[in-house]
């Protein structure tokens, strides 16, 4: 551990913990992995054991969904302790190859997917999208922060394309950063690479502040959370697209004409729901799509089940062979008679869609971002 001003115990207020067990009780992966976050809250109080604890493989099972912190009666954030242990590993240079590649790719090309910066605009295709100039005289209403996954992943880029269509239909004045856009660093911080995250924070804040815009809109709840709550000195207000689109619908600026005659349910992304209390806007949007019959999961809103896509899990394979939470999720959706699981997060989209394939129900169960449904209903 580097010579820090405050100790591990003080940093995470470990002595405030009363070992009540709500963190592990609520932890979505506690039943399928060896992770018991309450025990880490206790064991890390012995600083001599930190190195040994940081070598435990289960610290990489945490999805950083935040349930443990949301439930903690003492206002502590147990997940941060696990991130702190990951940092110790990274500082020691003990790092899994997949994680190392993702972090190097962010450092080099500004994205975790190992793709060159020059390909960052490929998703735009023949859509007509304004690329913003820094320090422009004219104000643009919305800066669209696209997210690496939306920009590079061939499946997820359809979501970004849908958002462009929706915003154009609503007459919103918006633009994107273009090739200079870099990863927000949400996953970087959660993988424990503190130094690289500080760089993302500084460089992105400087870049974003250079644009003459009224507000920033993100597609991914992970970017949203980081820009809104973890950056230092960002001048512009940050919105998630569901907030903007719900407002457009309410103001009558967006009209939906085509019927989507499907039974639709909605899966709350942890970074939108549990971490930012955005529950109503996505539902408001879905229930205004013509022909949609909306059904709630039993486990919804504050009790929603994590899909296991966050916390760097896209680059870390769990040792557990037990049923994935995303599989439980798609099975539940099928049992309630849903035909579409709507999501509002690129990771949820990928994990749930993958789960429908594992379960062999990809023909009968569609996983789609709310934006894709909206674009189809225009």
């Amino acid at each position: 551990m580097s010579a820090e001003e405050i100790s591990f115990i003080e940093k995470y207020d470990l002595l405030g913990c009363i070992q009540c067990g709500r963190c592990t009780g609520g932890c979505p992966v506690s039943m399928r992995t060896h992770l018991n976050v309450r025990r880490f809250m206790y064991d890390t109080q012995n600083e001599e054991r930190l190195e040994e604890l940081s070598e435990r493989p289960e610290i990489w099972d945490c999805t950083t969904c935040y349930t443990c912190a949301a439930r903690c009666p003492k206002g502590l954030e147990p997940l941060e302790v696990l991130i702190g242990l990951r940092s110790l590993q990274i500082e020691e240079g003990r790092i899994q190859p997949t994680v190392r590649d993702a972090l190097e790719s962010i450092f080099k090309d500004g994205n975790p997917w190992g793709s060159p910066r020059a390909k960052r605009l490929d998703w735009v295709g023949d859509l007509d999208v304004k690329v913003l100039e820094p320090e422009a005289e004219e104000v643009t209403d919305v800066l669209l922060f696209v997210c690496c996954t939306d920009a590079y992943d061939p499946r997820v880029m359809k979501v970004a394309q849908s958002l462009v269509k929706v915003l154009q239909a609503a007459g919103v004045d918006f633009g994107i950063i273009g090739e200079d856009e870099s990863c927000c660093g949400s996953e970087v911080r959660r993988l424990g690479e503190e130094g690289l995250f500080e760089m993302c924070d500084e460089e992105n804040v400087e870049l974003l502040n250079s644009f003459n815009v009224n507000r920033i809109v993100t597609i991914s709840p992970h970017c949203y959370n980081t820009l809104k709550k973890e950056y230092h000195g960002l001048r512009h207000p940050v919105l998630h697209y569901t907030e903007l689109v719900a407002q457009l619908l309410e103001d009558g600026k967006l009209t939906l004409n085509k019927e989507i005659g499907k039974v639709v349910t909605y899966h709350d992304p942890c970074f939108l729901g549990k971490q930012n209390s955005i529950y109503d806007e996505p539902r408001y949007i879905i229930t205004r799509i013509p022909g949609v019959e909306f059904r709630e999961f039993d486990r919804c809103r504050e009790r929603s089940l994590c899909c296991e896509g966050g916390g760097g899990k896209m680059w870390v394979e769990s040792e557990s062979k037990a049923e994935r939470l995303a599989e439980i999720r798609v099975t539940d959706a099928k049992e309630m008679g849903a035909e579409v699981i709507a999501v509002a997060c690129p990771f949820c989209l990928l994990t749930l869609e993958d789960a429908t394939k594992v379960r062999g129900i990809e023909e009968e169960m569609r996983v789609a971002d709310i934006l894709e449904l909206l674009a189809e209903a225009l």
Partner: protein
Amino acid sequence: MNGKPKIGVYVCHCGTNIAGTVNVEEVRDFAASLPDVVVARNYSYMCSDPGQALITEDIKNYGLNRVVVASCSPRMHEPTFRKTLESGGLNPFYLEMANIREQCSWVHEDPIAATEKAKRLLEAAVVKARNLEALEQKEVDVEPSCLIIGGGIAGIQAALDIADAGFKVYLVEKSPTIGGHMAQLDKTFPTLDCSACILTPKMVDVANHPNIELMTYSQVEEITGYIGNFNVKVRKKARFVDMDKCTGCGDCAEACRLAGRIPNEFDEGIGMRGAIYLPFPQAVPAKYTIDKENCLFLAKGKCGETPKCQEVCQAGAINFEQQDEIVEFKVGTIIVATGYDVFDARKKPEYGYGIYDNVLTALEFERLVNASGPTGGKIVMLERGKKKKKKEEEAEAPKVPKSITFIQCVGSRDKSVGNEYCSRVCCMYTAKLAHLVKDKIPDCEVTIFYMDVRAFGKGFEEFYDRVRREGVRYIRGNPSEIFRRGDKLVVKAEDTLTATPLEHETDMVVLSVGLVPRSDNREIIDILKLSQSSDLFYLEAHPKLRPVDTASDGIFLAGVCQGPKDIPDAVAQAKGAASAAMIPMAKGKVKVEAQTSVVNEETCRGCGFCVELCPFTAIELVEVNRQGWPVKVARVNEALCKGCGACVAACLSGSIQQRSFKDNQLLPQIKVLGVK
């Protein structure tokens, strides 16, 4: 006595509280060097008998006419030393205190700097003491009557004690009956006394007591005045039933078109009532009330041809023309016993309360196990919000749960909902409810999830031992979430003793909700200017030594409105509040503040700024004749003035001075403290 000041200075060690940090000898020698100081002493405990004797002896021997005590806060011992001066034959207002404990030795570590500060504080007190004046403490008569707000067990007990002692009591209760939460409970822990059996006789005593005037369905609207002479205004809400005529027969309630269709507050919404109702059979007074929000005739202007209740009431007691009535009376003292709300479990959405029919609060469950409750004491699975079934299906008996799970600390010890405190009763009422389940359904699997069991009271630990041996399973771990799997509820938790995460399937979940300040507390706070502690319960005057008093003289606290407590503690506090309230009433007279404000009517411009500012409505504008011209000037009612000084600071023309804090007393003090 008003000749040259002869000042005695006394420096207290307070054991090591002061002397451990401040060099008391040095402070004493410094005091002796100040002008007009004729004697300076230090002593281990000035407040002790021998300490006080030093002062009275010196008054005699040196002819002292001013005394300065350098010790603790005046809040602590000013009354003590004022009495010392009196017994030495000196006007008590010739005392000045220098606080060298709370404001010096307790908060500083460097002994040299602390000693220098103590000297400065002492010198400031000495220069102020030089110009102190004798004041006269007036007495006012005390009205021999008491207002009690709230008719739960605390209010009831206080009312009975005071009334039995021969004083008049006005007991004001907001709901249609007295009894409070205790009337809703089935058995009480740890003795398993039937709650209603021990409470209802007291309720009847209240109704029959010649010294108690009971006002139910009533609200305090306004209180003015001061200890001994409070003027109270109460709104008696219209019940639309003539209290003198109603016999309590209940024909009206049966006839009401809405009978069985409105959730009964007393049954926590599990049982139903009509628009005209008696909350429960033993209600006091045993008179019916029409709820005007729901009554078809009152809310919509039409209830069939004629309202059914009116049709069947043989006493002719129904009166739809009845209006709210305002009653005014005087009292000498006030006891606030407004009780509590239970924590709103919806604020913890992870437990699914309000979503799942069979996630209940403990108070709902209390009504479910209660023999006088809506199921006659049968514990059955609930189907909430379902309309009454058609007759043929009615035969289907409600299901009995095979497993019931309790979750403790819901809304207590929980920063995430803003309640950091322990509610003190939940561990035990949970054990009691678990026992009742085992008693009624022996093969029911009963599980209690807990984080700590706090069995601190008389007989509590023994009861906890007994309940465990009855087969109630205690699992250490506070659950995090509830969801549904098939027709079962799943409690997601960790058994922290074995570090096993688990999904516990059960039929019914009971949330052991904590006690919270009433949502309508603000009304009483505004009327009485009460303070709140950080937990938002009402604040007592001193946590150890004045636990039933408030900061306002003559106003006392009883029961859970001051903080969570069980029935015996609430009763004990009520008895304490009753006896405290009876002290001024028994004396018949009470001293009022002497350090009041006084207006110079020659220079007052009558702007009225002070009138608006005064928090005690002690100032009014009066017309006086100034050299043939009628002018308005401010005048202070000395009985109402509390000596807060707000008017003095605000007066635009400098026409108000406060006794003992006049310019010629304060300015020299400021000079000493401000200029080296």
